[in-house]
């Protein structure tokens, strides 16, 4: 087994040992989403119009919330040193960690969001579009958030700082993710949106691993 798959399997196994940690993130997602109808009122046409934006924003916050521990746990118990000293590229380790994060956060969020969309009065095609855009868009959030997590490793007040760094960089993904459902409501297809989301994910894939690796090396100095 290569270092990449070993690290991926290790992180997934660690999550399985404490499934509650993922449960808390998903519960946050549900509770945060439910607050909107309570705050805005239950008119179905209003809710259906804001559903995509609300669910995308809530997913973004939920993903960021869980990212703070992505490298911090390894930093605190010294296993980060073992990754830094592993005889294979640190960029791959960064990628494995972000992939593990996406599997335990982005993937379940993408599956859960359409279910919540029903409560917002979204129709069938919109629910499908919501799930599809989240599925293609959340990897970008894991990568950009992973970078913010690596940059704030060992910083003071790292949680709020992480959000401040990651949120502006996540804006394009949010715009095209939430915009897709609106386009669908206007009677157009969402292929362009999904393609742009995929392109954004590829840009993140091409740029963030080396940046995360550089940030982790600095944290190790």
């Amino acid at each position, binding site marked *: 087994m290569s270092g990449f798959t070993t690290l991926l399997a290790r992180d997934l196994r660690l999550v399985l040992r404490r499934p509650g940690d993922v449960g808390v993130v998903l519960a946050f997602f549900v509770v945060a989403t439910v607050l909107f109808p309570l705050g805005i009122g239950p008119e179905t046409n209003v809710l259906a119009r804001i559903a995509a934006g609300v669910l995308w924003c809530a997913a973004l916050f939920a993903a960021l919330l869980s990212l703070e521990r992505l490298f911090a746990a390894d930093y605190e118990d010294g296993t980060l040193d073992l990754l830094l000293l592993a005889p294979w590229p640190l960029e791959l380790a960064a990628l494995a960690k972000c992939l593990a994060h996406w599997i335990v956060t982005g993937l379940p969020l993408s599956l859960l969001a359409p279910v919540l969309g029903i409560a917002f009065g979204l129709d069938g095609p919109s629910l499908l579009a919501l799930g599809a855009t989240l599925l293609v868009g959340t990897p970008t959030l894991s990568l950009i958030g992973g970078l913010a997590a690596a940059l704030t490793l060992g910083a003071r007040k790292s949680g709020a700082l992480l959000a401040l760094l990651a949120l502006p960089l996540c804006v*394009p993904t949010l*715009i095209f993710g939430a915009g897709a459902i609106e386009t669908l409501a206007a009677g157009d297809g969402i292929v362009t949106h999904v393609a742009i989301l995929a392109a954004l994910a590829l840009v993140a894939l091409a740029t963030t691993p080396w940046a995360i690796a550089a940030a982790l090396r600095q944290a190790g100095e």
Partner: protein
Amino acid sequence: MADLHFLANPARFRRFSQRVLPGLGFATVLMLAVGVYMAFFVAPEDYQQGKTVRIMFLHVPSAWLSMGGYALLAALGASLLVWRHPLAALMARAAAPVGASFAAVCLLTGSLWGRPMWGTYWVWDARLTSMLLLFFLYLGHIALSRAYDSPERGDRAAAILALIGVINLPIIKFSVDWWNTLHQPASITRLDAPAIHNSILVPLLWMAVSLLFLFVYLVLLRTETEIDRRRLENAEAAA
């Protein structure tokens, strides 16, 4: 001996900046005075925007300088990460708040201009929204560079952020433009005039150059301060 090594570049920079700064400051004041005079008394009123067009002479150059300032942060970041240039870190630390201030001026003047034109202080105009996100990127850079007990660690983390930020800036701009056309009819008066007459263009460019002088002056002055501050901190750490 070892301290001299660290200060080699900053010390040379200090000698340079101390020679340049007084003259540069004088030139900046002079140019700004001429620029403000041209903006208020030479440039004609716009037939559509009236006197409010004069805000553009501050608004537009501020937008240019805040964008250029972020590109400068990225260049300084690359220079720090690749060549470990100690001066680059101090200059980035000095430049970020200046760039953020120009972004803030751009946002404020944009909103002041918007009040008579749009009837409200804030409209989700594509340019203003992009500028707001750029302002947030600046805030992140400033906060990150000051978030560590070791200033060097903050310098390098912020350098990585600036590089990733500069790659994402065009993407953010593109997506905000797209979002804007989706959500707003194009009939609203945009902040950019379609064709600029020379009587406006000349004062505009003059103001842009004057504010560039101001930008450079402030960055050099603040870099000097950062050099002194870092030197003091190192002296305290060694004591």
